[in-house]
């Protein structure tokens, strides 16, 4: 009996010592669920329910101001970041913090699993050929800048979201991908991707790939327009869509 207890202690210690980097992967479903609850209670008020409410940070997709290990994230959860609005959470212990990390990491790894049915290599060929996607989009320095740069889209969107964008592009346009049209006096309407706007001005990336800024009061007309992204519902078959999705999911930043 004593031997068993001793063995258990050694095992526990061993697990604790080995935990840092691999910890999230070894958490149970319960831990992830618990992490989700703790995230909702302790983090979501500032970071939002999807963890993407603070500019430059998307916790659900593993985007931080700099790459962070599990241990670093857990440390930030407990101790905060000095001189920033990120507060410490002193009543949270390390185990609870790691459960939140496990929950966040579980969100990050979800996309790859969903895209298994497609072939990324075939998808790349369709993307660059039949689909003519590069007429608007750019990947790793190649293609147009008019639409969103997709070089890291695999980090930013999940497979299901990418599939929806291909089939029903107007169903959910990310705010930063909205298109806007302005009509200056004596000019044809100018359309572009909305970069920013406020009460008095609007900033666009126009279809000639120029950064444009306008004072709204000087315009004859201005406003949001539908996305120029076409639907590929009738242009590509189901397997081709899956292939393109697989290609997009594989895009995780410039090598």
């Amino acid at each position, binding site marked *: 009996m004593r031997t068993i207890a001793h063995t258990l202690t050694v095992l526990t210690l061993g697990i604790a010592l080995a935990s840092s980097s691999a910890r999230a992967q070894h958490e149970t479903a319960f831990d992830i669920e618990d992490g989700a609850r703790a995230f909702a209670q302790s983090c979501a*008020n500032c970071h939002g*329910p999807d963890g993407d*409410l603070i*500019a430059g940070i998307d916790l659900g997709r593993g985007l931080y101001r700099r790459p962070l290990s599990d241990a670093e994230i857990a440390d930030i959860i407990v101790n905060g970041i000095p001189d920033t609005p990120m507060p410490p959470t002193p009543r949270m212990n390390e185990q609870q913090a790691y459960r939140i990390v496990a929950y966040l990491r579980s969100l990050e790894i979800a996309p790859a699993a969903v895209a298994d049915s497609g072939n990324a290599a075939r998808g790349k060929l369709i993307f660059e050929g039949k689909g003519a996607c590069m007429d608007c989009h750019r990947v790793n320095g190649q293609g147009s800048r008019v639409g969103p740069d997709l070089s890291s889209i695999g980090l930013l969107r999940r497979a299901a979201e990418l599939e929806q964008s291909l089939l029903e592009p107007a169903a959910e346009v990310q705010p*930063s991908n*909205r298109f806007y049209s302005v009509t200056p006096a004596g000019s044809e309407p100018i359309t572009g991707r909305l970069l*920013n706007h406020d*009460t*008095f001005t609007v900033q666009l990336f126009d279809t000639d790939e120029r950064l444009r800024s306008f004072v709204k009061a000087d315009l004859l007309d201005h406003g949001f327009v539908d996305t120029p992204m076409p639907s590929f519902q009738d242009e590509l078959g189901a397997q081709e869509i899956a292939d393109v999705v697989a290609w997009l999911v594989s895009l995780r930043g410039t090598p």
Partner: protein
Amino acid sequence: MKSRIRRLGAIVTLFGLSATAQVHAQVSFERLLNAEREPENWLSYSGTLSNHRYSLLDRITTANVENLRLQWVWQARSLEKFEATPLVVDGILYTVQAPNDIVALDAATGRIFWTFAYEPSPDARTCCGRVNRGVAILGDTLFMGTIDAHMLAIDARSGQLIWKTKVAEAAERYSITMVPLVVGDKVMIGTAGGDMGIRGFVAAYDVKTGDEVWRFHTIPAPGEFGNDTWSGDSWMTGGAAVWNAGAYDPETNLVFFGTGNPAPDWDGRSRLGDNLYSNCVIALDADTGELKWYYQFTPHDELDYDATQVPVLADIDWRGEPRKVMLWANRNGLMYVLDRVTGEFLYGKPYVALNWMDGFDEQGRPQRVPGMVPTPEGTLIRPHVHGAINWAPPSFSPRTGLYYVAHWENSGIIVVEGQSPRPIGINRRQTTMGQVNLQPFFNNDEEAYGVVRAYDPDTLDPVWEFRMGDITWGGVLSTAGDVVFSGGKEGYFFALDARSGELLWRASLGGQVNSGPMSYAIGGRQFIAIAAGSSLFTFALP
């Protein structure tokens, strides 16, 4: 020759010192009570203890405001939001460098006299930024609450600490972000932490010693009236924090404070009942802290509708009768006129899109719309969890008789039982908290937007509106030149015609406006000050 110059210099210096000493006369309570008699100064958070945030200075008018020019900028060493409104006393400007440093500047040039540096305890916890909304003054002493829940008294001439009193335990999640309120020989303060399960209170301290004089708990203890509005032991951690500026009425000797939401914020199942005195305005005897009356804006709140807005006290002809009223644009989307002597509910109505109530009973209790509560499936509630307004200070102009409020419109949120609220719409940034720097903004017309509106206290109807693209966490200043100043998250600071709302002037300050504007004068020259980003900007006519 040399010695003569030296002697002259000494005389000038002496004269200068003596003049300074004379000019820097103590800020008596009498001066605070009659602050409108010296509009060149700005002696308390909203200019007067009635919180009008109205300046009698009239050099800047609707006719010349377009000529405003930047005078000086003071950049804080801080990555936090700049929420403080400065004080100006006889040419010296005092403000806070977040979280809890105080600086004294020459109000004419922005050059620095001294800095008081304060390092809060690492135990300090704040829900929404390590911020501070300003200092109070009495005599030669400045008062500031700290994010580690202390009250400090600082020598306004030297910047040295006079006393430091622990208001509450920072480790138990009490913190202070609000401006203190000075009344007579007492300085009053409450704490934040209502979302973290504190038991709220407001306390008064002796201005000379820092000794506590009285403390009023905003959640009654067992045996006290109102404790039975909290089920079980929920009263012990029910929040109801006092975390924004109060007001004082010398005629009744009452101080008024708004109280925050009950905790837990979005799940009322553990705290059944009305949860007094959360989401109330409380009227306390300034000498004793005794509760004289209260009015609860949102009984049993499950939507985080803190009633911590800045109370505005006005003596007006209300519907043909002279009344001593309190005007209140509340976070819950309702605007109120209360009798501030008795607490009587005189009138209230929605001022933004709202769906959680559909009228008042005779006592002014809101009638809930059935089903507009958190549910397992989620319920779309308007306004948003951050409300129609949050803490930003409004303004009242006795000249126009209008109540000016910067707030936001058209916001909503899905509230799921027992969990965090979920913003609706694709743009989940629609009403996020203010930040320091500007962010790209993509909202379309259907999503929430900010406004400055002028309301008629008789009807609570808007007389005019100035609409912004993004929402605003900025306050409002009105002046005797019939100009209204405000700003917002887009980083604009602008001037409107107080009677029509017409845009007269604007400046792009490069950082979000998270503070209330104020005005002062140096040598008869009117200045307007506003904090944006992490800097303080001042403007004046050439």
